[in-house]
Structures are given as structure tokens and as C-alpha cells.
């Protein structure tokens, strides 16, 4: 089960953190951007995911700061999290390549 497919919110949160540490609201905005506006995470979903990712040691708290009197905590991808994301990217690449190949063959077959 450890190498099973990641759920989309998890994949997107890990991807958002791959470029560098981000705070909660930053992750929400980044996920929306990465998914081209298709996925809009909400705070409840984000913090449930972060709770799981921190427990699994895929994500860790990086630093805290206070902005306008409100606590802002930054999260970063751990080495373990980066490895897991790389595995998922490779898994997606293999399946995407297979889908592309078959679609191309179908198109070629259809025109022949």
C-alpha cells in the first residue's frame, strides 16, 4: 500500500511544496494554479492532508512568522516526501505514455 497511487489533493499539495516552503494560504493558491483552476482546495481538506503528510514524514513544518497579528506557518517537502512524489510522477509518466501510445495506434488504425 505504501506505493499506491496518491490521491489528487495529496499529489497537488506535494507538488506545490516541491518548489520551496509555503504557508497554508500559499499552498491553496498554488494548487489552484497548478491544476489550472480545476482544483480549489479548502482549508479543511488542506489541513487534514497536512496532518496526514506530517505524520507520514512527507512534509514538515519549516518556520513560523506573524503577519498582521496572525500566525503563519510554512511547510516544506521532506526528502521522503520528495522521493514519494518522484515515484508518483514516474508512475503517472508510465501510464500516460501507455495511454498516448494506444491512442496514437488507434488513430493510425482508424485512418488506415
Amino acid at each position, binding site marked *: 500500500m505504501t506505493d499506491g497511487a496518491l490521491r489528487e489533493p495529496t499529489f497537488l499539495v506535494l507538488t506545490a511544496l516541491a518548489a520551496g516552503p509555503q504557508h497554508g*494560504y500559499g499552498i491553496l493558491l498554488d494548487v489552484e494554479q497548478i491544476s489550472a483552476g480545476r482544483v480549489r482546495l*479548502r*482549508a*479543511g481538506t*488542506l*489541513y487534514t492532508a497536512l*496532518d496526514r503528510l506530517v505524520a507520514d514524514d512527507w512534509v514538515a513544518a519549516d518556520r513560523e512568522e506573524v503577519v498582521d497579528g496572525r*500566525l503563519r506557518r510554512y511547510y516544506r517537502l521532506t526528502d521522503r516526501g520528495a522521493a514519494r512524489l518522484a515515484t508518483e510522477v514516474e508512475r503517472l509518466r508510465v501510464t500516460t505514455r501507455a495511454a498516448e501510445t494506444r491512442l496514437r495506434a488507434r488513430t493510425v488504425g482508424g485512418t488506415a
Partner: protein
Amino acid sequence: MTREQHYRRLLALYPSDHRRQHGEEMLGVLLAAHGGWRDDLDLVRGAAALHLRRTFNMDGGVSLRDAMVVVSLLGPILLLSGAAPDLHEIAWWFKADGLVAVVPYEQVPDWPAWAAWAVVAVLTLFGARRPAAAMAWVACAVHLTIISAFPINYAANYENTGLLLLGVFTTIGLTWSAGPARGKELVGRRGIWLAFGGVALSTLMVAMMSALYALGFWAYLLGPWLAWATFVFGGCLACRRVPDRRTGRHAAFVLALPLVSNLVDYGLFALLGPPLFWTPSVTTALFYGIPTLMVLAGLGILGRIRRSLPN
């Protein structure tokens, strides 16, 4: 009500540890985001998910070793309440026949098991972990043998499921955890006295069972439940003294096995009716298997096994 007050109310639904660590941070994110009823629903769903994760220890936040240490200390004490019906029976015979009464063995077939658990309790309280663990294995074997050997006379076979299961988990705790000495550090002397108090009250309830009959048949039927609930309650109060509340709650859940397994058994009977007893092997598997799986899931062990499996 301001938006901040509204969100604070919703955040109050979250587990306390999560609220302490992320409450202010989440509030900041919520106030910066668009808001609306979808955010509210998402918060409620997130709170439910996090409570579930904590209930089944999926976040690994509960120290299994400490939970089992508490079980290894309090389990032998609480198991003494299994002897209450036998003591009540023996007292009846002495009352009827005087000091020379001979109690038929069939009336108290399980007394060797409770005698063995009494020895375990004494050894545990004196900190003799290894002898206590060895004796606990003997007690479990004796109890299981009696349950198997007296299928007809031993009418309370299924009612004893929880006591036998608690015995097994206690034995596992005594054998593989840090032992009762660490348990004493966690619950303190007062915790031990609370457990003993629960057992004493439970014994009293068993003694008063016939008096309950005067109140009506339903009160009489309620008697055993009150007895189980009383000693389980004593165990739960003792577990409240564990500094880490979640570890205490998970230990209390294991100690509540006699009550939990009876609830499961009655639930199964209500659901399936008499066919439940048509195949004894299936009945036994259900009566022992479901409470065991519930404890394993509650301690997060099933989740760990699932995660460790190859894809």
C-alpha cells in the same frame, strides 16, 4: 456574528491537539479565503476526518507501549471482577448449608481461572513482571480450557468472551510491554485504587442482583450490565490519570473489552437472531473476532499492517 467568530465556532469541532497547533493558522487561512457554506462544510468534514484518524490512531499519536503498560497493570485487577458470580454462589452455599457446605464444582467451574488471575494481580502489584506474565498465560489457558470443557453447564460462555479477550490483551501487555512498574508511574496509586473500587462496586452489584429482581424482570436483566459497566468505569477513571489523554483513552478502550464484546454479541443477536447460533464455529469466530478487530483497529495496528503491505 463576525466571520472570525463563525470560524472559531467551527474550529471548535476539531480535536484539541490540532486546534492548539493549527487553530490560529487555519483561522488566518479561512479569513484570507473566499468563504461561504462550502468552506463551512469542508471544515466539518475535516474535523470528522481528524477525529476518526485520532480514534483509530492513524496519526501514530498514541504510544502503544504506554497503552499496553496501563493494560498490563490494570487488567489483572479488573479481571478479578470475573470471580464475583462465583463468590456469590459460594456464599449462597455456605449460607444454605453452614460452614461444612460443599459447593458442587459445576456451580463454579471457572474458579481456577480467577484464582490464577488473583495470583497474577498480586505479582503485578509487587512488580514481578516476568512471573506475572508466565502466570497470566496459565490463567488464559485455564480459562479457555474451562470455556471449551463446559459448553452446557457454563451458560455464560459468550458473556465471558470479553473477560477472556481482556485476559489475552493483558497477558500480551505483561509479556511484551515495559511492565506494570511503568504503568504505576502513569496512573499512580490513586489509579490502582480506582480500579479496585470499580471491582468492589461490581462485586456488590452481583451480590445485589437478586434484590434487583424485586424491581422487575428488566431490572434483573440489567444487573450483569451494571456489574460490567461498574468495573469498566473504574478502569476508565484510572486511565484518566494517564498524562497523555489519548493514550489513556486507548488503554481504557482495551480495558472496556468485557462491555464492548457484550454489546457486540447482543448487537449480533439482535441483527441475526437464532441463526447466529446454528454454526458454533462461526458464532465463536464472530464473538471473538469482532471485538479483537475493534481493539486492533482502535490501537492503529490494523492500519500499520495495511501500510506495511506491498502494493
